[in-house]
């Protein structure tokens, strides 16, 4: 064995114990052109290595990223978009942008680096004139796209004359759907055929199809969204915000969906599809674009294959792990990063082509105190002391640490649970709150410990806290609060009977 490889080996062993998160992940502020409002509505990498950034007032800039965060050579590629909140480059020299009224392509046909041809690709939705009706989209992995069409807010008006048909019932309520397909996810196939896919969204500000072809979105906590949901999107489902139902061809024309479900929560609960993972308000206030951490470990093997869900209203990025139990997705949420120089307003994310850097675009302008810009988190190697996964077992959970299991006892854990019933009220309170104790604790391998929980029932969100846990070397756990949404308990047929 050569000396150099021995040294490498030693280094790996040394870092395997525990590293400070900030040593493993470096945060940079990326400078956008001076004087340009850095309100990042969308960002994406093209196959030829350009980072495209769509700013909400009009412009799309691009640059080939370099190491120096202050020295990106930005070029204006396209402009004129109305609150562009989604961008994707299907081929070199061409971008697609979702703006308020449509999905538009912009192509540089003469190769001078500036788009000269703009085409409407899809506009099968209305625009009422409300300021809140932004849209975003993602590729479906099959040459088509999923489009998330936002609702309007009662903090704004509608115009006398709307783009597309107007619905009196759709106009009602806090966030509303007065024009076609607002509050829907639409599917645009590769032949340009558009199909309404799923309804019931307040503001799915971010949608993502993962490498397995599964589609995910968050939604904005608010009316009918008691906490931030992380949805697994499937065709035909209703995800809980009633206004959009006025554009469902199966919904009776003479029925006001808001009133109907306000007065009949049982019928409502039967109709709606629950979120795979619920993220309490203390963890995330306003979900934006999800993305999967590369499976190849380029961003750290310890988090590979999990999802990032950024918070548009907090200085944090959530980390979500899902698993399928009895055919239903459920799972755990904690933080990837909480604070540490990260701005609020986290809105859009993209991994660099080498998968080592996560670009995070921020904007809240028009919704809250400005938190605008572009940041980059680069994995430098090493392993933070953390819990990487939490899996469900018939009587509790199995927690896998990124390193050796520290000293643990039943008292290390504080476990509680709650349910969240969506209603017309903005946000929601935890119901059916309960404390649980850990009555058994067992190591299942060198990194994993299984705990069993008293009164363990499905259809609740379990909070698992490890307040004072330290690694053998004294370093603190990177995250010590985890929430696991239990829809199903494996091997159990019990139901809690609680409104979940």
């Amino acid at each position, binding site marked *: 064995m050569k000396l150099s490889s021995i040294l490498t080996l030693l280094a790996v062993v040394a870092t395997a114990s525990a590293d400070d998160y900030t040593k493993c992940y470096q945060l940079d502020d990326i400078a956008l052109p001076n004087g340009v409002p850095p309100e990042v509505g969308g960002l994406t990498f093209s196959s030829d290595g350009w980072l495209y950034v769509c700013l909400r007032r009009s412009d799309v800039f691009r640059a080939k990223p370099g190491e120096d965060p202050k020295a990106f050579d930005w070029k204006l590629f396209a402009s004129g978009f109305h609150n562009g909140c989604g961008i994707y480059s299907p081929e070199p020299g061409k971008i697609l942008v979702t703006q308020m009224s449509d999905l538009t392509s912009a192509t540089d046909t003469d190769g001078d*680096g500036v788009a000269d041809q703009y085409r409407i690709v899809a506009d099968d939705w209305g625009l009422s004139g409300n300021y809140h009706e932004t849209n975003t989209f993602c590729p479906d992995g099959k040459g088509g796209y999923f489009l998330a069409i936002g609702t309007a807010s009662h903090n704004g*008006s509608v115009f006398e004359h709307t783009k597309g048909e107007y619905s009196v019932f759709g106009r009602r309520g806090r966030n509303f759907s007065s024009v076609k397909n607002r509050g829907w996810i639409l599917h645009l196939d590769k032949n340009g055929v558009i199909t309404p896919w799923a309804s019931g969204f307040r503001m799915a500000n971010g949608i993502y199809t993962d490498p397995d072809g599964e589609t995910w979105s968050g939604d904005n906590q608010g009316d009918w969204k008691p906490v931030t949901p992380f949805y697994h999107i499937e065709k035909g489902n209703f995800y809980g915000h009633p206004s959009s139902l006025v554009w469902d061809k199966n919904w009776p024309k003479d029925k006001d969906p808001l009133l109907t479900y306000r007065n009949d929560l049982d019928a409502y609960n039967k109709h709606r599809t629950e979120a795979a993972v619920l993220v309490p308000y203390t963890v995330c206030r306003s979900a934006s674009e999800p993305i999967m951490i590369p499976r190849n470990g380029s961003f750290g093997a310890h988090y590979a294959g999990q999802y990032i869900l950024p918070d548009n209203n907090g200085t944090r990025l959530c980390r979500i792990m899902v698993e399928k139990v009895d055919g239903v997705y459920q799972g755990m949420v904690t933080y990837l990063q909480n604070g540490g120089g990260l701005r609020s307003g986290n809105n859009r994310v993209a991994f660099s082509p080498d998968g080592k850097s996560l670009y995070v675009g921020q904007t809240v302008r028009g919704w809250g105190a400005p938190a605008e810009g572009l940041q980059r988190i680069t994995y430098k190697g090493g392993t933070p002391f953390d819990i990487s996964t939490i899996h469900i077992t018939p009587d509790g959970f199995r927690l896998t640490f990124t390193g050796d299991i520290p000293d643990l006892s039943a008292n290390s854990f504080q476990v509680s649970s709650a349910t969240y019933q969506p209603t017309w009220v903005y946000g929601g309170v935890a119901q059916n709150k309960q404390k649980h104790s850990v009555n058994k604790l067992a190591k299942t391998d060198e990194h994993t410990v299984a705990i069993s929980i008293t009164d363990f029932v499905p259809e609740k969100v379990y909070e698992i806290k490890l307040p004072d846990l330290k690694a053998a070397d004294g370093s603190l756990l990177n995250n010590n609060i985890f929430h696991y949404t239990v829809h199903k308990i494996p091997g159990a047929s019990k139901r809690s009977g609680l409104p979940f």
Partner: protein
Amino acid sequence: MKNPAHALFLLFALPISAGEPITYDNLPLGSESKPLLLSTYMPDPGLDEAYFAHHGKSAKSPKYNPGTGKDIPGEYDPIKGLPASLGVSFGPALSYAFDTVECRIAYAWQGGFLDMYPYWGDPVRGSRQSYDYVPQLVGILFHKANPMSEIFVDGKRLTDLDHPKFVGYNLENGTPAFLFSRGGHEFKLKVTPNTKTPLSFSFTLSSPDKIAITYDTPNGDRTTNTLTRTVTGTALGNFQGFPRDMKIKEASVANGRKLFDGLGCSACHSVDGSLGHGPSLAGLYGSKRPIEGTQELVHADEAYILESIKNPGAKTAKGFPPNYMPPYILKDLEYQSLVLYIKSVAKGQ
């Protein structure tokens, strides 16, 4: 363009054919060589109800209390605006609204573009004006679309052809050419400023199909599937954007400078002698000014400067077109501050 925000951009080497980026300046302005196009909500300056043939029609809606989930007394009123329009600015020479729903030029104006302040907010807080967020016009409105188009296609009014469908646009040397279909035909519409005649613009409407496109008459020749036309209007209204209280408590040079930037004068006038859309104001005060249409020089005293701001149409500075500068209705202290500032830059800075 001489305000500091613009000056910063001179440091950036932008591609030749790219326009200037949008900044925090809420009064963006294109130019004849680099027109600015913004897809945005736009004001409705009183278009005829019948104009909106292919729009949806909204209604008043009961007020709602989100806490109780119940309606409360009162109603929400819809507001005026064009939901899906493209605003195009050629600088003070011409601005127009292309409506992507009706596929028509909704209206045109001169002497400014849009005040985005109600929508984009001020740079620091960045918040829109609550229920009054539609950008506002700046300049002199001179053309509004008639509900019935004056254009005929094979003897039928353009507006009688069904299914207007916006396709997109090409930038031809930076100038947008809109593509749409209507009545089964494809069309291309390109609008350009007409600097020879005040309050006018030119357009070319063409089709790849063998159809007659005519103006004001249903009769035409099918071999000429192109119509080029100049539209001249009359002043229909003056607009100076969103009324902003700059909180001026005394007339001073400093307040004048604040107004000069805040009201967007700096988008057209330099104070260092360099040429913009309008004459530089350096050296103006106290000079003898050549005026269009007369041999006599005018003494540029306080009265002349005041008149130039209140009623720019009264005398037009030589070498500049009329109607490029909109009249400004301001408070007395604001006029006085502007005059003081313009006096202070008389010798250049």
